[in-house]
């Protein structure tokens, strides 16, 4: 259960990977998620074609997210962030090394490792929608297969929905404490069934 503290700032536990759970919502913080920014100038260009091959499938279209599953290594989640950026989350070390190698000599794009810098929170449970509508605008909460970058809890957050009832929030590490504290406060009110 979530307990309310006086300042709402004591969220270090969640920052370090523990989970919050209350009122029909579970929030898990994964500070070690492997994240990267794929930057490019032409989403239809050769660089992206080569990256898609290495990543195991096409990169997402605008406002979309795709999950590529592999039998013998971690899934790769890709989320559109802007016309020149796609976030790449997960994937095995070998695959990521291949991506970096392919990208390193290119003039058409680059691969910027963001591991540790962009942290992923996974929100699940029947009241996920209720929680997100209290963090940001209801109109930017993504549906399955979508990725929206918008303001949540006063922060720039990329919200990604791969499957119903589960949402990934990607936020800069420096702000994880603030986001977790906001969620903690909200969940404490869920517990009170207000």
């Amino acid at each position, binding site marked *: 259960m979530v307990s309310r503290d006086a300042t709402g700032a004591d969220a270090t536990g969640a920052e370090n990977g523990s989970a919050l759970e209350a009122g029909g919502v579970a929030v898990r913080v994964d500070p070690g998620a492997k994240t990267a920014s794929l930057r490019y100038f032409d989403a239809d260009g050769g660089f992206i074609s080569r990256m898609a091959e290495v990543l195991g499938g096409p990169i997402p279209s605008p406002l979309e997210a795709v999950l590529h599953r592999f039998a013998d290594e971690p899934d790769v989640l890709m989320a559109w962030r802007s016309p*020149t950026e796609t976030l790449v989350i997960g994937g095995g070390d070998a695959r990521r090394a291949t991506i970096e190698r392919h990208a390193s000599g290119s*003039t058409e794009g*680059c691969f910027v490792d963001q591991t540790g810098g962009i942290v992923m929170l996974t929100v699940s449970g029947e009241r996920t929608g209720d929680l997100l509508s209290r963090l940001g*605008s209801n*109109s930017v909460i993504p549906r399955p297969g979508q990725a929206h970058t918008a303001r949540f809890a006063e922060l720039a957050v990329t919200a990604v929905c791969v499957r119903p009832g589960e949402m990934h929030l990607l936020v*800069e590490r420096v702000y994880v404490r603030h986001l977790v*504290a906001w969620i903690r406060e909200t969940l404490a009110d869920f517990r009170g069934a207000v």
Partner: protein
Amino acid sequence: MSAYRLAAPRGARIDRARTVSFDFNGRRLQGFEGDTLASALLANGLGLVGRSFKLHRPRGIFSCGVEEPTGLVDIGAGALRTPNQRATLVELREGLRAESVNCWPSVGFDLGALNDRVSGLLPAGFYYKTFKWPDWHLFEPTIRRMAGLGRASGQPDPDRYEEVSATADVVVVGGGVAGLGAAVAAAEHGADTLLLTGGANLGGALGWRDDPALPQLVAAAARAGVRVLTRTLAFGVYDHRLVCARENLPDDPARRASDGIMRERLWKIRARHIVSAAGAFERPVLFPNNDRPGVMLAGAADKYAHAFGVACGQRVVIAANSDSAYATAESLRIAGVRVVALIDRRPPSDIGAACDSTRVLCASGIAKVAGRTAVRGCTVVSADGSGRRPESIECDAILSAGGHAPAVHLHSQAGGKLTWFEAAAMFVPDGHAPGLVSVGACAGVFDRDIALNHASEVGHALAGGLPAPCASPRGAGRSLAATHLAGVSGKQFVDLQNDVALSDVGLAAQENYRSVEHLKRYTTTGMGTDQGKTSNVNALVLMGEFTGREPADVGTTKFRPPFAPITLGLFAGRRVGALYRPLKTLPAEGWHRARGALFEQFGNWYRPAAYPRGGESLDAAAQREALAVRTSVGLLDGSPLGKLEIFGPDAAQFLDLMYLGTMSTLSVGQARYGVLLNENGIVMDDGIVARLGEQHYWVNTTSAGVERTAAAFEEWLQCEYTTLAVVVTPVTSRWGNVTLAGPKSWELLAAAGFDASFAPASMPHMTLRNGHWGGDVPLRVLRASFSGELGYEVNLPVNQVEALLAALWARAAEFDAVPYGIEALEILRTEKGYLHIGTDTDGTTLPGDIGLGRAVERKGANFVGRRSLLRPAARDPGRMQLVALRPGDGCSLLPVGAQIAAAAPPTQSEGYVTSSYMSPSLGAPVALGMLTRGTQRLGERVRVHHLGSDLEAIVVEAPFIDPTGERLHG
């Protein structure tokens, strides 16, 4: 007023079986569940509720809803006290505490009422004409003490507020018959429909009436899937069909005992279509002393009788100029209230209604009200000059029925126009507002059946994406626009809350404040918590009469959100305390805490200011740390330093455009200081640019400036330099930074396992090397210094920062190493004369002001801000320039912010002190400042003034330490 509780079955809203106790002004009273505070006070015979704003005249309950101008109370006590609540909206609950506002020592005996005795000296705008001599400040404290109504708590609010966003195809504002009709029709035709109603129940302002359509509509709404939010008041319509509403949540004494509760919820609803069914307000009639407790809107008295079982008086008189008064009189009679007379200003020929059960005096008006704190009677005179003898009528309540004013607020907020409907003397919507359709009384449709049909058609049309039909005003009966009675003495109040009388409107007209907006500001009519819901139309009609204009020509003031008062807590939501603003956190916060760090906020970062040792002050710790950096080595967590990766074939060209300084000539591995300007040539940020590859750069910004730098880069790329192939990737969160400064920096790094390629001999100042530490930890090491000492900025993945700090700390004792915080860093950079953007610069600082004038001259290529710097004003030698300062006596610390001027203020300032510290290395204070023609005044003695102190300072050459820069190289 001798209000009293009527016998059952009157009182559809109350449960007589459930008694509720509450306190009013310390007096224990009882009401019933379902009562409002207003109805309970009336039922207890309490007519005197508060005092007016300016004259402190006695005031009672005037209405039955959100428009209440006078029945204001402070609710709760201590930290839970909420000021200026309308008693008409406060739901009675066990233990409720309410107090009258704006009175001392009591509402019955208020010393402020002396104002009323001298009211002739306090006409509209008196404060614009008086209190000038000898000095406004002499009067200001007293006036400020007297201003305002209720008192805020002054303590932190323990309750909580939240913000929820929602979307809907159709949002209906108002839960009356029209609102329900529109909602049901929209939902039945497939629209996701959300209905907001301010009350606890559906039915709207007339929901207490026994209307058989109502339960049917409520059931139909449930069947059709209409989402209903009760106790939710829509207070604003904003751009792109955003509706904001406040939901009042029920109090919970059980939870309150242990914790704050969720008190209110702010709904931000994005709608495809908005339907306003906000109803209408009754317009009062003007007559002398029409503000006495016991004078009330007729419709309100009717509702109190039927809904709450409260008769507003034993003998009731109705003052009217509207047909609606006749139906009200009959309804009151049915409820058991004795109406002794209906006094209609209009001649019989203008009256379109009748009431056989009540004595009607046509072409008559009230010339006098007897009683001061309660109505004791009234005197009726002829209003048509017929010379009929005045007649005294014994009564204890006077009901005012001057027609209606549709609640067009949301329509106007949405950008809708209004038109004057003469027959009923009211402003109604002129067509639809963009994205918003009005139905029911707020559209001027007072006929129930017509309103319901129209609302249903609107709901149907909106659900189907079809144009919604417009309404024509119907069913309001006839009303007289003019409301006051000429030729009678006594104050006839237009705005009861602000004590604006008929004479004040006349004075505004006489002094040519003819515009309705000027009228409002000059007289204060329509201001305050009610925003003139019962006074605006009367005021503008009067202004029209005084200036020979029709009401339509006078117009209305601009309707702005919020429609009703909103607590500040609601707007703050969760943004209080630790959530007030997002603070950034260091990756190795725990390590710093273990070293005794004292954390403070710097540029939205929560980071160590210093590491005081047992009993040491912050200043002493900073001095010790700064000295340690000069003599051995210091460790700084520089992770907040802004970091951007710039990539692309045009990256070099882009950075040349963005920075004062040429970055394209850097070879891979080289770094250069750069200053970022905006298009006006103003210094925005600075930092170091290093080249990682042919088309790949690493940009360090200031800690606080990374967002604005990244935003500026994106803006120029997206709006101006659109042909350049460049991407900007912020990586501040990804890369931590451990900075070592001091003559033993390299020795400590080497001891921690850094290989010789990073040694000063192989890595000169202002170079960057990629490498690894501990085998696989990637590094980007920059030789740079903000202290003037040998410096290394070691950038590495954030999750490795603590490990590196630990490794360095493990060998720290061998090199007398200390961790140092921001305070020591500020001392060190000031000793070297290095500027800090935002501290030594402001929103007017140009490169030439900080010693970079020659850099501007040298750079022949274009760059952002260049054109502005070519203006003569930018080259004015009389501008302020950054200089170094020493105290004249050699020992006094010059206060930061102190003004430099030849004489004590008030006088022309020549500059100010921007940075000032005691230098531990010199044993004397050092300072920087901006000074007019500063660089031409080296050696000059200037006067420094601060809060009455007067110091001497000497303009000297920077830096204070190591002028040749030898220490940078170790």
